[in-house]
């Protein structure tokens, strides 16, 4: 494994004790004959090529165009993900929907939990101490730094992913998109929109 952990902006994860532990674990797995370097690389490559925010974006766009799917997505995220080929996520998927009254934002204060299969590798800032500590305490300021300005009567709901549940935000469908196909709508949805640090 070499290429997957280089490109984070923000902190340099190479120097973290956890990175050293991961390298040590990989060496032990390989030495014990449980996995080869190539197998680990192939696993990571598979994860990092199939795991992209396009998956979450397609689910959001489908929810905007198909009321039955929206119901399913909100009530049983795993069943909704299975319809896009993600039947074995290994975690409980929960979708939190932005409404005219509520804006949702996700964080993991304890580490960096996040639905990787549906959102792709998490951004460096999502793992930063600043984002993790400040989002629960002062989300309005954090959102402002992301350029998100909410109307005064919108309440912010922060979701701290402390358990085996993973959260994804269903953004509100943008105005002026009537008649657009789900495929076109999916192109409007950003990774930050699915985390809650952008409106869409």
């Amino acid at each position: 494994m070499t290429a997957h952990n280089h490109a984070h902006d923000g902190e340099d994860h190479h120097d973290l004790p956890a990175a050293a532990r991961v390298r040590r674990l990989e060496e032990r797995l390989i030495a014990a004959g449980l996995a080869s370097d190539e197998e680990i690389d192939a696993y990571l490559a598979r994860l990092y090529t199939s795991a992209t925010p396009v998956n979450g974006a397609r689910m959001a766009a489908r929810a905007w165009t198909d009321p039955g799917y929206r119901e399913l997505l909100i009530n049983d995220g795993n069943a909704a993900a299975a319809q896009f080929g993600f039947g074995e996520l290994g975690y409980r998927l929960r979708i939190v929907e932005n409404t005219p009254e509520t804006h949702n934002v996700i964080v993991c204060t304890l580490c960096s939990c996040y639905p990787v299969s549906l959102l792709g590798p998490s951004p460096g800032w999502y793992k930063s101490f600043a984002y993790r500590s400040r989002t629960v305490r002062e989300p309005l300021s954090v959102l402002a730094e992301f350029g998100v300005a909410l109307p005064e009567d919108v309440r912010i709901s922060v979701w701290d992913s402390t358990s085996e549940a993973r959260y994804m935000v269903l953004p509100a469908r943008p105005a002026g998109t009537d008649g657009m196909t789900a495929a076109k709508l999916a192109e409007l949805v950003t990774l930050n929109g699915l985390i809650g640090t952008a409106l869409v």
Partner: protein
Amino acid sequence: MSYAVGDRVRARAGDPDHHTRLPRYVRGQAGQVVALLGDWALPDASAAGVTRKETCYAVRFAAADLFGSGDHSVTVDLWESYLDRA
């Protein structure tokens, strides 16, 4: 003891001498159960090599209670043994 959506619960206040996923900022604070998340291995037990499944709850706290200010809410997923009825 198990809880239902709408129940008021309080996160345990102590500082355990073992691994836990009960964040410090909610310890001792009261909130409301907003969802049941199913049964999952308790991390505190897993860290000791024991698999012990417990019900997990999404518990919503008011930021003003946690931090003394803020109009927002923070929802934290907490295992049953992290909670007492409030």
